[in-house]
């Protein structure tokens, strides 16, 4: 099997081919490493490859990875091959490569969270997500670029420069998990891990034509996930198809005593009902999110997808979440408030950088001003203000009350319908630099994704079609968001699978006039 063919295959297909002995894990890993070396802008010498500094990246370099653990990945692949030859019973994703967002710890490898603050920090432990991936013999290729401390919707807030969208190199891949999304969309890995606080998996999935899921809050352990907003953060999968995403989430989820917010109930079986179809299923269209500033192209793709689901036997109804419009303002108080508290730990004492100053307090303040980028400083300021004496009731507590109202809205809606749907994002991917000077415009990218985050319910984005940008472009991906009640993640996968099978979209940008990255070799 030739190398480009391997980077076109999904996780399940690669696992089947390895199990059948058609290809080794080492060949699979090498094919993906080659693609990274060719297209990502890394210094591919030595055991650990580093991303080039932003000013040395070429205009065609994706910059999805910050670090590639090439030698370690090859060693693990050889180990999988050895154990398979010895007749060991390996897991369903054994030998499949994966891109890990640089907000989850991997022992002995720098974790930067896209920030200068943590430069040089090598965590002394593995995140539970990392451990579960290792236990499943999934091969981690490296750590991916992200908005600093996961604060952003474009990956432009990375201290190490933005990631490009494999569908259009002048556009953003979304964020904050843009590096993992770009890596999977470009065939550098069939699987990726992102984290989602207000949409940071679903929005980049929509922008890069991928399936991306935010599991029910508490389904996946946060141990070793550097905290942004602890009551919202969830890690989850990226993949080029629904089955692969379900297989990956199945590996990630489960109770963890190391995370006090981990859900002790048994996780949802995502595969058992995957192929059950949508006949007779009641699908609610959230009226408040359907029109929320949607581009006409996005809206048309969404309406066409609804028609298709109806033809497959689903019952489509309009449903109101009366407080959904207050989700975005509530989110931009709750998340910064929690961030201002969580990021207090970056004080120049225990890890990362320190700027010397005569007293502890001036050292703290100088270190933090130098280490954090502009968006992180902005959110810390908002959050500190929202929690400060005289303002906490008007801001933080009011936002937390809105959260209750939104959760009640969802509970009422799910009494009538099985799942809720909306466009994942109001627009197709925007241009690099287009929104960097307007924080509020950037925040509005998250209007449809934050309500599910506030309620903690599972939500997934699945490709629904393609539409040109309003400013004129080749067709770009559009995502459909599926939301379900707490712990009913399986329903989101079931609806997504039915839509995916009926649409039969090619996930390769080259099939739709985009750059030839996934299977076409160096044809750019």
């Amino acid at each position: 099997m030739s190398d480009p063919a391997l980077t076109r295959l999904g996780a399940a297909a690669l696992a089947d081919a390895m199990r059948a002995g058609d290809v080794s894990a080492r060949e699979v890993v090498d094919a993906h490493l080659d693609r990274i070396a060719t297209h990502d802008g890394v210094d591919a010498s030595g055991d650990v490859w580093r991303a080039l500094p932003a000013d040395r990246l070429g205009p065609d370099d994706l910059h999805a990875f910050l670090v590639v653990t090439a030698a370690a990945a090859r060693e693990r692949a050889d180990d999988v091959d050895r154990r398979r030859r010895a007749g060991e019973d390996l897991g369903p994703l054994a030998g499949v490569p994966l891109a890990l967002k640089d907000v989850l710890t991997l022992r002995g490898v720098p974790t930067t969270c896209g920030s200068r603050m943590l430069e040089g920090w090598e965590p002394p432990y593995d995140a539970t997500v990392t451990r579960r991936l290792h236990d499943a013999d999934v091969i981690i290729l490296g750590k991916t670029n992200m908005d600093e401390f996961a604060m952003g919707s474009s990956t432009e807030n990375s201290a190490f420069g933005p990631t490009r969208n494999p569908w259009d190199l002048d556009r953003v891949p979304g964020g904050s998990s843009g590096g993992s999304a770009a890596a999977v969309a470009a065939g550098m890995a069939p699987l990726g891990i992102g984290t989602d606080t207000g949409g940071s998996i679903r929005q980049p999935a929509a922008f890069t034509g991928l399936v991306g899921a935010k599991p029910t809050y508490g389904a996946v352990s946060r141990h070793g996930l550097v905290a942004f907003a602890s009551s919202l953060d969830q890690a989850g999968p990226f993949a080029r198809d629904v089955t692969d995403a379900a297989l990956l989430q199945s590996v990630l989820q489960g109770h963890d005593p190391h995370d006090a917010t981990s859900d002790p109930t048994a996780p949802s079986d995502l595969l058992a009902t995957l192929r059950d179809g949508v006949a007779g299923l009641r699908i609610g269209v959230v009226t408040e999110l359907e029109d929320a500033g949607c581009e006409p192209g996005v809206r048309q793709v969404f309406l066409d997808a609804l028609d298709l689901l109806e033809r497959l036997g689903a019952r489509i109804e309009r449903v109101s979440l009366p407080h959904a419009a207050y989700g975005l303002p509530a989110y931009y108080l709750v998340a910064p408030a929690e961030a201002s508290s969580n990021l207090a730990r970056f004080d120049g004492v225990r890890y990362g950088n320190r700027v010397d100053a005569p007293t502890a307090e001036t050292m703290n303040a100088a270190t933090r001003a130098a280490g954090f980028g502009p968006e992180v400083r902005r959110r810390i300021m908002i959050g500190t203000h929202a929690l400060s004496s005289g303002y906490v009731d008007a801001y933080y507590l009011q936002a937390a009350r809105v959260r209750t109202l939104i959760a009640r809205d969802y509970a009422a809606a799910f009494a009538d319908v099985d799942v809720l749907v909306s466009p994942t994002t109001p627009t197709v991917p925007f241009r690099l630099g287009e929104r960097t000077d307007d924080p509020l415009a950037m925040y509005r990218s998250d209007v449809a994704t934050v309500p599910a985050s506030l309620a903690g319910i599972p939500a997934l984005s699945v490709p629904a079609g393609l539409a040109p940008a309003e400013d004129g472009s080749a067709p770009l991906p559009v995502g459909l968001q599926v939301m379900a009640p707490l712990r009913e993640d399986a329903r989101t996968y079931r609806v997504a699978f039915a839509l995916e099978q009926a649409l039969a979209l090619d996930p390769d940008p080259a099939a739709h006039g985009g750059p030839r990255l996934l299977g076409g070799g160096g044809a750019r």
Partner: protein
Amino acid sequence: MAQGPIGQDDVRHVATLARLDLDEAEVVALTPQLAEILAYAEQVGEVAADDVEPMTHPLGLVDVLRDDVPAPGLAADAVLAAAPEVQEGRFAVPRIVEEDA
């Protein structure tokens, strides 16, 4: 409700609370941005009444404790290796108490 839009003095005060040593140019640039974001966020005051219980966590888990069984922690050396300054097996910081305090 909040008392008027946030001003430059408020921004300096919040920066002190947040331990962020902002320069004057950033205070000037941040003030209108924070005012705009907070004005947008203040919409939450339109709907949430005092009789609505604030929600701080999606699952409502309480008193989560693991079994009281000893387990190994991280080695002190491995943790201290990441610190900017270490003395005698401890994190070292500049003086905390003023000399004439």
